[in-house]
């Protein structure tokens, strides 16, 4: 099967049947379920530690009324993290490279924070549109700018994740292709390219983790403003 560079980004089908749902739900199966034993095996212990650590890190700046978002946001982070990291394996499909999926995650979460803010503290929410200490003449312009930045947030959230992952995957493909093509022609350059590829892979692992974390971190920040 010959692969073009963009086959990895097309929605996966098998014998004409879309298996995107399997691709999205498969990462869930690799996480061990919490058990009712007191001492667990290493995998479950580290999973528990990781979840409690990230929850405390993300949610300690929030008021207690925001802590009820902990479950969904940490689930989201685990979802994105697992998808990003599994997508680095060869011949896998990464659902988070699809803009449709990322936007469908970003817009509802962002909108929920806005609606909570508008419903519970409308004055404060509108007040966020004007930073403190701005000179009087700049107020109209700044309100427009802040409103724009407010509405661009979901787009930024979705596109950031999509662009980072798509670009990373594409780069891996390109450099791997270059290395593959150069292998019979100039082996020394191919080896250099492969070294570059290894560094890039390390970067991509970091990017995968960071992008998942940043997505959820920004959502907690938006929540913090509005809760």
């Amino acid at each position, binding site marked *: 099967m010959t692969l073009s560079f963009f086959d990895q980004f097309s929605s996966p089908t098998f014998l004409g049947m879309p298996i995107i749902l399997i691709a999205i739900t498969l990462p869930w199966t690799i996480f061990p379920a919490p058990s009712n034993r*007191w001492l667990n095996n290493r995998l479950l212990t580290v999973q528990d530690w990781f979840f409690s650590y990230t929850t405390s890190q993300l949610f300690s700046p929030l008021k207690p009324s925001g802590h009820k978002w902990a479950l969904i946001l940490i689930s989201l982070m685990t979802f994105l993290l697992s998808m990003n990291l599994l997508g680095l394996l060869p011949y896998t499909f990464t659902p988070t490279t699809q803009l449709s999926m990322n936007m469908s995650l970003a817009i509802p979460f962002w909108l929920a924070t806005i609606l909570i803010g508008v419903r519970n503290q409308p004055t404060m929410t509108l007040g966020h549109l004007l930073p403190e200490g701005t000179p009087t003449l700049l107020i109209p312009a700044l309100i427009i700018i802040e409103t724009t930045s407010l509405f661009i947030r979901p787009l930024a959230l979705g596109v950031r994740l999509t662009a980072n992952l798509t670009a990373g995957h594409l780069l891996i493909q390109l450099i791997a292709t270059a290395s*593959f093509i150069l292998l019979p022609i100039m082996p020394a350059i191919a080896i250099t390219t492969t070294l570059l*590829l290894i560094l890039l892979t390390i970067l991509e692992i970091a990017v995968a983790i960071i992008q998942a974390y940043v997505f959820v971190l920004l959502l907690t920040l938006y929540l913090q403003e509005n809760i």
Partner: protein
Amino acid sequence: MLSRLVLASGSALKNSGSFGACMVQASRSLHSSPQSLAPVPPLPEKGGKIRHGIFPEELFTLLYPKTGVTGPYMLGTGLALYLLSKEIYIINHETIAAASIGAVIIYGVKKYGSQVAAFIDKLNEEKVAKVQEVKELSMSSLAQAIENEKKEQWRVEGRHMLFDAKRNNVAMLLETNYRERLHMVTNEVKKRLDYQVQLQNLQRRMEQEHMVSWVEQNVIKSITLQQEKESIAKCIADLKLLAKATQARTTV
């Protein structure tokens, strides 16, 4: 076949009975096993044995009787060569990408695997240590309580000594008090007697003085004028004699 029917009807009856959807009972129909879920069987301490990170040891033990030690490796090599030669798997850029991510993962696991395992083990150890500490603390406090109790029992044995000492103490105090009061009484009585003695002395002395002064007064009164003149002339004559004698002594 009839037994299958019995089993099926038995499980159906169990399922549709008043116990509702009790799958546990359905799987143990016809009362063939003990009905207890506790104690929970212990988890295996370590995971299954693995060779080269992904292949379970069971595969090797499975193939060992027929193909010996190199059997699984030959299987792997043959499989790989088959996939390549029949072009079921084609080497392309993804292979290189797979090689790079494989290298990174293997390097990460080999270098940091033991550290991560030690960290996780430490998390579990801390959990156990906290509870163990509570247990140790309660055990040591109970042992301390036993020691204290034993000491109290020993103290009880020496109680009579304590009481003797206290009794002696009290007796001594009483004795001291009695002696003090005796002293006080003696002193008081002596003071009163001294007073009486002094009074008598005073009386005698005053009588004596009075008598002496009376005698003196009478004597002075009885000295007549003639006697006075005579005594004075005598004194003068004596003095002259004494002067002469002294003069004579000094010139000699």
